[in-house]
């Protein structure tokens, strides 16, 4: 483990195990689950019928990301001609601790050079399967 603390939460104990975490019917669009694998937390979301899984603790002070709200946020860059615009509606995971923001699809922290791990998650035979 490196000394830089921002790296610490990214080091997880992924084993590549295929985990059945729920019946698909129990995780309909708009719902989420917190999956604890050993000491590791993973947040799983069903957004409009597609599943997303992301490392479950905020790298700031370890608050559980599974409880974070999903919303949009403001961006301002060359593509917006340096004007502030609302973007990523429904795809920004806001930490319920101190409101750090992550793109739930990629794990990218908005405004930080930091990316959380994401995990494969899909439906198979009526079950939600997480590879972690």
């Amino acid at each position: 483990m490196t000394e830089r603390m921002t790296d610490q939460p990214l080091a997880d104990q992924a084993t590549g195990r295929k985990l059945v975490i729920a019946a698909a019917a129990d995780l309909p669009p708009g719902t989420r689950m917190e999956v604890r694998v050993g000491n590791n937390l993973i947040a799983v979301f069903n957004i409009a019928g597609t599943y997303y899984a992301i490392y479950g603790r905020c790298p700031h002070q370890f608050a559980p990301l599974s409880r974070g709200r999903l919303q949009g946020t403001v961006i301002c860059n060359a593509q917006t001609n340096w004007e502030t615009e609302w973007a990523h509606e429904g795809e920004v995971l806001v930490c319920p601790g101190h409101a750090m923001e992550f793109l739930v699809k990629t794990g990218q922290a908005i405004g930080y050079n930091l990316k959380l791990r994401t995990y494969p998650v899909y439906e198979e035979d009526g079950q939600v399967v997480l590879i972690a």
Partner: protein
Amino acid sequence: MPSEIDDLDIKATKVDAAFTPVQDQDLDQYGEALAQYTIVDTDVHVDDTLMRMVDYMEGHYQKRLQAALQADFRGEPGNSLRNMIAHVNWLGSSYDKPPRAKLATKTELLERMQLGIINYSILFPSELLPIAYLPDPKWAAALATAYNAFMVDEYGNLPGVKIALVVSPNLPDHAVEQIAKYGNHKDVVAVCVPDVGVNPPIGDRKYWPIFEAADHYHLPIALHGIEALVHDNYPLRVSHFPTLMQVHSMGFPFTGMLQVMSVVCEGVPVRFPKLKFCVVEAGLTWIPFIMYRLDTAYRQYRTELPALEQKPSDYIREWYWGTHELEALPKRGDLRKLIELYQGEDTTMWASDWPHLERDLIAGFMRYDMSEAMRRKILGENAVRFFNLEQRK
């Protein structure tokens, strides 16, 4: 209904989005490690909104506050003092993303204490923190009177719960009366001077009766800042900042530096050598700056401060400091290095600011490397000494 699947060490739980900040998730993560320490949370806030104060207001102030509370103020909470007097240019700017700020009820405070991990909570004002820059000091005094009566009434005689009186510095005589009224109460452990906007700064002789009274009752002075939607006074003004992020970042530490400098340079520690001071909610990284910056100037300008018998840092080293809002230092060893730099192993006190939005989760402190002895002191032993508490573990 939560559905759970247990597969040895795997557990999947259905959860809901949190609309208020998650609280104490770290306690379940660190509970076992923390159980061995006496832990004092040096900065805790309960609901002291004006609705709570109104029954404790006296005379015409009660009638006038009742009328004021019927008005519809934008913002959160609706009956907030800071919103009543705020310049609204920031409202909505930093409050547009969840989680939202939160005030703890008595039940929530007791539930947190009943987890058995935190042994003491020191309660500080929240909505009452702007009283030092209310234009009418009599209003400030009326609110302080109500706050102290409310707190002793509602939060006295609860296990592990201790109270910091609040005084309005702009009416020192009134502050002295309040200290005399509650100074011997077993659950009153400090005198809180809200320090933002105090003009002249708090070391001025005008305020010395407050220090004398606190000294008499062996109560330490705690300076508590505020995020401050309003900085119409020292050391920063509204016009300096287009965003609340900037006023938040500068307001607390600059106020802390100003007041520490003022107290030391006015000779307060020479006149009241046994009186203890602390600064809470201003972070830590600025402490070495002000200590050694003043030492440097002292060599040249000492004749301006003839009462001092030691260099400024020798006095400032005796101050205590609440850790919140713990700055995000990049490396695990950095907090220890910082504390060594200001020689604060025996004067740094863990503080969460629970349950406010910007509160520190204890995991944010535990992740830093330091000796076991230093961790034990910061989590509780230093605060036990500062607030005159009994060891609980």
